[in-house]
């Protein structure tokens, strides 16, 4: 029953998401636009590369690659949120009550939604990779494919888990979008998406280390652009794995809490 719900929810969201062919186009344009924005952010300064300090080593990374990886991972997080905002859509359409009336496991519903975003993400990834190779000619250095794959997979899972926690907000209240945005902004700022983490003011670093995307960015950037091995990124990957498991457990509790609160306050039909 659990996996049946996951698959059903995933199919529904994919169907709704890819309702229009225009979505296929926007899926390419959106991350490219984001990436360009970040890339142009560096233009006022004298630089064509970024230095990333990690484990007493300094990696000189291609600027385009640095920003586009950041954008790619963040885009995935945004996709999870967008699909998670399906609850907001359900609320608008008046179907949220019908969904929660069913005995379907709520985690299964959330997971199905999050996995649907993976379908969207795969499509987007194709477009972005073509642009990297063909247009920007990013200098990629991969020495350990297993390390790269593990970094990407764990980053993906951690963002799914984080997204599921935030999705609970959409059930709780029509202000879910607002709360979600409040959390999205610091994630973008504190995770090292825009600039290397060593530049972060000391007082804010502690918050950076609470965000799974921080470790995902370090791992993916080092393994894709810096030629790092599994040994080099073992620590961030280990932390990422722990955070992912914790966030999944937290999501399970949050969804139950949000639903109970929404039923007490009768907010399921308000939009």
């Amino acid at each position, binding site marked *: 029953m659990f996996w049946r719900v996951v698959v059903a929810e995933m199919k529904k969201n994919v169907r709704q998401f890819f309702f229009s062919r225009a979505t296929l186009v926007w899926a390419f344009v959106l991350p490219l636009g984001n990436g360009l924005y970040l890339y142009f952010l560096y233009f006022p300064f004298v630089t064509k590369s970024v230095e990333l300090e990690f484990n007493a080593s300094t990696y000189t990374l291609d600027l385009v690659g640095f920003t586009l990886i950041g954008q790619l991972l963040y885009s995935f997080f945004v996709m999870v949120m967008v699909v998670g905002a399906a609850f907001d859509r359900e609320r608008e359409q008046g179907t949220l009550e019908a969904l929660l009336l069913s005995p379907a496991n709520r985690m299964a519903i959330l997971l199905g939604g999050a996995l649907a975003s993976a379908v969207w993400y795969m499509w987007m990834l194709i477009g972005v990779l073509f642009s990297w190779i063909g247009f920007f000619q990013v200098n990629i250095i991969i020495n350990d494919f297993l390390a790269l794959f593990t970094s990407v997979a764990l980053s993906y899972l951690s963002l799914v888990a984080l997204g599921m926690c935030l999705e609970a907000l959409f059930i709780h209240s029509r202000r879910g979008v607002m709360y979600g945005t409040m959390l999205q902004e610091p994630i973008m700022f504190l995770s090292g998406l825009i600039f290397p983490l060593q530049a972060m003011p000391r007082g804010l670093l502690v918050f950076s280390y609470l965000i799974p995307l921080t470790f995902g960015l370090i791992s993916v950037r080092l393994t894709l652009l810096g030629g790092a091995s599994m040994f080099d990124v073992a620590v961030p990957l280990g932390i990422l794995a722990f955070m992912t498991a914790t966030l999944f457990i937290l999501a399970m509790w949050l969804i139950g809490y949000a639903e109970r609160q929404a039923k007490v306050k009768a907010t399921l039909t*308000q*939009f």
Partner: protein
Amino acid sequence: MTIESFAVEAQQLSRDYVSTKRSHILGRKTTTTIRALDHIDFEIDEGELFGLLGPNGAGKTTTVKILCTLLEPTGGHAFVKGYDVVKDAARVRKIVNMVAGGERMLYYRLTGRENLRYFADLYDVPKKEVSTRVDRLLELVGLIDRADDEVEKYSKGMRQRLQICRGLINDPEVVFLDEPTLGLDVNIAKDIRKFIREKIVEEQGKTVLLTTHYMYEAEEMCARVGFLSKGKLVAVGHIEELKRKMPTGFSMEVLVTRLTDETLEGLRRLKKVKRVLITDYEGEAEGEKIDRLIINVDSDAAAPEVLDYMSTMHCRTISVNIRGPTLEDLFMFFTGEP
């Protein structure tokens, strides 16, 4: 623009819906055309309450939407107070309004009063009249005490009553009521019907087109009706005139069990029986399925013969009701639909 002689006029009105489908997002398109309205003609006089009846999917809502300019016809013409609904759409919008069943067409985050004031602005109701008109309408439907609560806090019945206020805010000459009592409980639906008949039509002299699939509703409210079936207007006229067109004056509504095809055939061959319709009935008697028969007979004297025959064929009669033809009978007669 035609010379204004009717409040509403449809001439060979047609509407096709074209739907396209792909088997998958990159697949080829296939197109299907559904004819929702098929060359319908009818007229509504000034001050008349006209009923457009039909089952779901017959084309009632499509007709209403064309007449209030929300849809363009794919064939034919329609006129409201002499204005073409396509060419003179802007003028038509000034003199019509629509109330639809269901809970949409209202801003849930606004109060009842705010909703009405907003629509008053959209209709350019004279400013000095807005407050009094809004209050009067709210009082008429019994919402004045809740006027300053957000619509999201209203019950279904309250929202429908507010819809009626919205439908009258511009003092329209023609009002389209598309299943206005849909989903409402019996008492509220009755109040709304009474309101429409007495306040809107009799007192204010407005022209009303009412669509419904509840036959008793049309029978209670309308003098003239039209029957829509699968996009075609199969009959239109005064209810009494239409009843006279039926070949028989009486109907027997009989609930039986143990009905067989042979019995049915035999029943149809009886001299005094003009027509037999078998309709859905939910229920059982002592474990046996109940069938509902509508038997048109030429007089009530035919009843004993019919019942004797049924008894001979070992059918068990649960109940018999002999009556003059109802609107439901008329509908079934003209459309052939049970």
